[in-house]
Every structure is written in C-alpha cells, then in structure tokens.
C-alpha cells in the first residue's frame, strides 16, 4: 500500500480565551488515502470542524495548533502563508455548511468560480468561463451557461451548495473537505448532493473528508468512519465494520439515536444522557465516563488509549464491544 495522501499525527488545537484554555482537539491522528471517503462524526462541539480547519490553518489567531499534517510530503502546519494559499482551494478544497451565506452576494456565481480558476490556474477570462460552465454541468446545474450571470440570491439553497461544490472542484483538488454540506438543506436535496459527491469521487478520484453529525449520511457514502468525542478520536473503523460491530458505548449511543424504518411509533429513540463535558481541562478520566452506562473505577481514574480490538478497528475504551439492538 502506497503512502497516504494526507497523514495527520498528534494534532492538537487549543484556544486561549478570557475564560481559560479550551482544548478543542486533543492528539488526533488519522490518515486519508487517495480517492478515499472518510466520515468524521460526532455531536456539535466535539472538534470535527476545528480538526478540518486547523489542517489548512483557517482558524482565528487565538488558536494554537501542534502536531503534524503531512500532505504529499509537506507539513501544512509549518508551510509559509504564500505556499499555503496555493494549497488552499487548489490541492485541498473546502465546502462549508452555509451555502446561503458562503457566496459573496455582490458578484455573479460565474465570476466567483472564475476568480478561483484564474487565481490558481492562471486561465484567461474566456478559458475560465468555459471551465466554469463545465463545472456547473459537473455539479448538475441545469442551463449552466445562463446560471453564470446570476447572483447568489437568485439561486435556491441546493443550487448554491452545488455552486460551492463546483467552486471547490474548480482546480481539481486532491482532497475535498465538506463540513456539514447537507445540514442546511432539505432532505431530498441532501440526497442529491450526496449522490453528486459519490459521483465526483468515482469520476475524478477526489478524496473526501465528510464532516457530519448524521450517521445516515456517513453510512451512505463513506469508506471509513472516525468518531470524535470531546476533542478526541474514540473509534475508527471501515464503515461496514463500524455499523456491524460498534465498540465504543458512545458510538452505540449514536447509532441508537438514528431513526430507522420499522421503528414503531411507541418506541422512543434512545438518547445519550448528560451533556458534553467542558473542554477547559485536560481529562484525567475517560471523557465519556459521566454519561457511560459501563463506567467504573478504572474509567473514572484513567484515560483510555486507542487500541485495535478487531482488524482495522480502533477504539478508546476500557470496556469495548457489546451489542446494540438496531439495524
């Protein structure tokens, strides 16, 4: 197996705020292969987006980042601003959660996509326009040539997200990082966008990091899934393995909270009791201990390390395994 496209080692992100230091991400390590789709799952505030943004150093100055993020042999975390700008958008592209507001309202979509093309690829105005039409067709926007001259407010939310994806794909990036790309959209449009992303991976061989809190979305298109809790990776496995044999009680809890067909009306969805712990202090116990049905003395006084419990299946838990009664 050749070297992974992206290899992240011991990535930690701290925010120095007036109320003390927040450890948003704690010693994350993962890798991403060529053309692989990695699902990054966890509830709000668990550090999914911060992990992704820290790799391209898109965080505000209050963040201090340590660790390494090797992309094609160079460490993104120590790259100069100038060279980093050439990676952003060209090699690694971002799609944000809010398609409604992530487009500049005063320029046509054609101009905004064309701008990325001309900056990174040095295309002429005419060539950029041709490529823009191609891109809009790639993301299945009907009547692409006419859409070029429209402004963001003239497009629907789904259309705007397609434009954002087209913009991200403009320079044929190696990696597409999609941060909750479907959260702000209607369910039917979500399906369309996911379908589009699958298609892009198949056609262009783009590796995708899909950040979401929705396990259904992950199951749909991911190759591998990484579950985060309170700034740490708690479980990582290939998608079928994870859904068939979830090990961490948090993962099991998440799966229990997914609505399933066949669930009858009287049955309640399982919830995970309690709330996410504060990230102001480094944990001296398992971060999930307070909410965990399996917590005991060991759990409360030691921090669990990741270990491989099944082939390719990593989990950070003292009492992994067990059943969950779902699909």
């Amino acid at each position, binding site marked *: 197996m050749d070297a992974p496209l992206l290899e992240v080692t011991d990535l930690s992100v701290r925010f120095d705020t007036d109320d003390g230091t927040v450890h948003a991400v704690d010693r994350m390590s993962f890798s991403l292969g060529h053309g692989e789709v990695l699902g990054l799952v966890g509830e709000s505030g668990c550090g999914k987006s911060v992990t992704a943004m820290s790799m391209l150093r898109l965080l505000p100055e209050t963040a201090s980042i340590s660790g390494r993020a090797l992309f094609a042999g160079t460490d993104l975390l120590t790259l100069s601003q100038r060279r980093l700008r050439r990676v*952003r958008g060209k090699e690694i592209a971002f799609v*944000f959660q809010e398609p409604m507001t992530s487009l500049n309202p005063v*320029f046509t979509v054609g101009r905004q996509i064309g*701008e990325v093309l001309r900056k990174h690829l040095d295309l002429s105005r005419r060539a950029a326009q041709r490529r823009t039409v191609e891109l809009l067709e790639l993301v299945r926007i009907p009547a692409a040539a006419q859409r070029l001259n429209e402004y963001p407010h003239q497009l629907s939310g789904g259309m705007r997200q397609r434009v954002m994806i087209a913009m991200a794909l403009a320079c044929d990036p190696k990696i597409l990082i999609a941060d909750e790309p479907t959260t702000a959209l209607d369910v039917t449009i979500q399906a369309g966008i996911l379908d589009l992303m699958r298609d892009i991976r198949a056609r262009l061989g783009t590796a995708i990091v899909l950040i979401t809190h929705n396990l259904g979305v992950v199951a749909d298109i991911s190759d591998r899934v990484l579950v985060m809790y309170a700034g740490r990776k708690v479980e990582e496995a290939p998608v079928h393995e994870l859904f068939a044999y979830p090990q961490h009680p948090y993962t099991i809890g998440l799966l229990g909270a997914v609505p399933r067909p066949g669930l009858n009306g009287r049955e309640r969805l399982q919830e995970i009791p309690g709330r996410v712990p504060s990230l102001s202090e480094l944990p001296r116990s398992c971060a999930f201990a307070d909410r965990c049905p399996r917590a005991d003395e060991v759990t409360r006084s030691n921090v669990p390390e990741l270990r491989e419990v099944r082939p390719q299946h990593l989990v950070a838990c003292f009492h992994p395994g067990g059943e969950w009664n779902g699909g």
Partner: protein
Amino acid sequence: MSGFLLRKAGAAAVVLFLASVLVFVGVRAIPGDPAIALGGESRDPTVLQAIRHKYLLDKPQPVQYAHWIWLALHGDLGVDQRELPIAHTIVTRIPLTLELAVLSMLVATLVGIPAGVIAAVRRGKPSDYAVTAGALIGLSVPHFWLGLLFIIWFAVDLHWLPASGYVTMHHPIENLRHMVMPAIVLGTGFSAVLMRQMRSSMLTSLGTDEFGRDTFSRIVWGARASMQAGFFSTLLALAIAVPIGMIAGYYRGAADAVIARLTDVLLAFPFLILAVGLAAILGPSLLNATLALGIGAVPGLVRISRGETLALREEDYVPAAVANGASDLGILVRHILPNMTNTLIVQATVTIPTAIVGEAVLSFLGLGVQPPTPSWGTMLQDAQSYLTQAPRLAVFPGLAIVVAALAFNVLGDGLRDILDPRTRR
C-alpha cells in the same frame, strides 16, 4: 437728516481740500517756468519779474496757495491764454454740455433698451445674435473715429448736417440739426452697454448683488468652486479613510487600537473646527480648503468603514474565500470593499453637501475662495449683510446648495441600485 448732510458736506470739504492741494502741488511739480511761458520770446528780466510779481510767483508757496483758493472761492479762476476769464467760459458751456449729455442718453436709451428687450425675448434667434453683435461693435468702435466718419459722410459728402458749430435753443430746429450727430456718436457706446444689461437682466430674474453683479451668473460660476470643494474633498476623504478603516477593521489588534483611538480624538472636534484649523495651517486657497475639508471628513469615514469591515469579515464568504486560497488583499478588495460600497455611497452623498457648506465657512473666514471669485458658500455669507433688504441674495445660492445636495442623493440612490445586484431587476 441734517446730521447726514453735515457728515457728507464735511467729507466733501475734506476731499475738495485734498484735491486742490494735489492740483496745486502737481502744477508746481511740472517742469518749466510759467513766467517764461507767459513772457514769450523776450527773456527780459524786468518783464519776467513783473509777471512773477503779478501772479505772486515770488511769494512763498503757502501764500500762493492761499491766494489761489481765495480767488477761486470768489469765482475768479483766472484767465486763459486768450485773456478770457475761465469761469465765464465754463458757465457758458454748461447748457451745451448738459444738452449733449441728455440727448446722447436719450439716444442710448431709445436704442439700447428696445434692442435689449428684443434680444432677450428672441434669445438664440438671429435677431438676438444681430443685436448682440451690434452691441459688441458699438462697444469696440472708438468715439472720436466714429465722429470723424459721421462728419465725412453726413456733412462733407451728403451736406445733410453741419460739420460743427452751435446754435442756441432759441432756434430749436437748427439747434437739433447741430446736436444730432454728436449725440448719436456719444450715445453709441452707452447704448451698447444698456442693451447688454437689459438683455441679461431680462434673461435672469435673480437680480444682482451689492456690486451689481448678476446673481444667476455668479451661481453658475460659483458651481465650479462649490463642486470642487464638495466632490473632490469627499473623494479625498474616501481615498484616505476607507483603506485605513478597512485595515483597522480587518486586522484588529494594535493597529486597530491606535487607529480607533486616533479617530475618537479627531471626532471630538466638530468637522468644521477641524477643517478650519487645517485650512489655517495650509494657507488660504480653494485647493487648500478642499484638502482641509477632505481631511476633516476622514475620521468619520474611517469609523464607518472600520465598522462595516468588522461586520463583513464575519460573513461566511470571507472564510470561504480564505479556504479557496484568497490573500488578505484579495479579500479586502474583492469581498469586503464591494459589499460596503452601499454604505460608502450613502455616506458620500451626505458628506458632499456638508463639504459645500464647509467651503462657505472657510471662505467666509478668508481661508477658501478668494474674492471676487464666487462660490455658493461665499455668496450666502455675503448675502447675510443684506438679509432684510434683499433676502433673494441668500435664497438663490441656498437653493443651489439644496438642489445640489438633493441631486447627489438621487445620484447616490441610483448608483446604489445599479451597483447592488440584490436591488437590480
């Protein structure tokens, strides 16, 4: 009333005294000896001495002066070279001069005023151009030359009128025959002046100011200074303030703290005080007034562009652009600036009229446009002294400012509608 007359009479006496001294000294200062001039060729010392004695030329100058004034007050102005008393000559010529003056005025009025009316009523038509051209010729032709031409044509060639001479008014027809040619010649130039005044005062109903200058023309010409002060100072202020405000708002940190506090300090001074101070340092001229007004408007605009930048940098498309590899400059120029143009345009349309009025204040203090060059502001300030007698002097320049401000507002609205795709249909 009697006080007024006394004052005027006193002033006249002083003027007369000074004028007589000037004449006396002036005549004495001219080189040459009056005794030799009067004595003719015979340079006989006794004759010269006699002449000098007769005219008191051997006395000290103050005595000579007192004697001269004494005689003049008694109606004795001396005699001319033909030994005719000068006082008598002047008195006999008075009716002649008066008649000629009245007749030439009559000619000028009868020709000039109807011509002016015709030109004004038929403005831009051939008759207007003909009359205007005629007036121009009338102003340019030298009187003495025209008089000579008239004598050659009407007296020498055609024998219609006498070439010279005077007949008293006891024979009215003959009298008029002698007077008609000089009256027409003298009236020509004046009729041209009358015609032009008549035409312009009919075309402009705004009247004239205390020096008889046409208000309408001054408003038209004053637009130059007012527009320059209003438009260019605002442009200058934007050019300085927007980059500063954007840098402060985008980068925050120490630069922002310094810029924001400096802005606060400058904003503690009212706009006009700031502009007056700057203009006083720069020195009086329209250019410096424009610079001062522009710099004076900078702090407010810095604050506005900083605030806008602070808000806009939090918009989602800014991190989206960063993720696409945009540089700081690219984000400022392509994402933040275009999104704040609305606010800037609105602010500029407010700043322009303020600067126009500000120019008035600077000019009033002698720091702006220098008289007689008009600007709307200086006209307003000048009109202040005549507010009760001639309010129109203040009304029309004021209206000009109002119309200009309104026009800039409409222009700003239109620009905003054109530039903002969200309001475009």
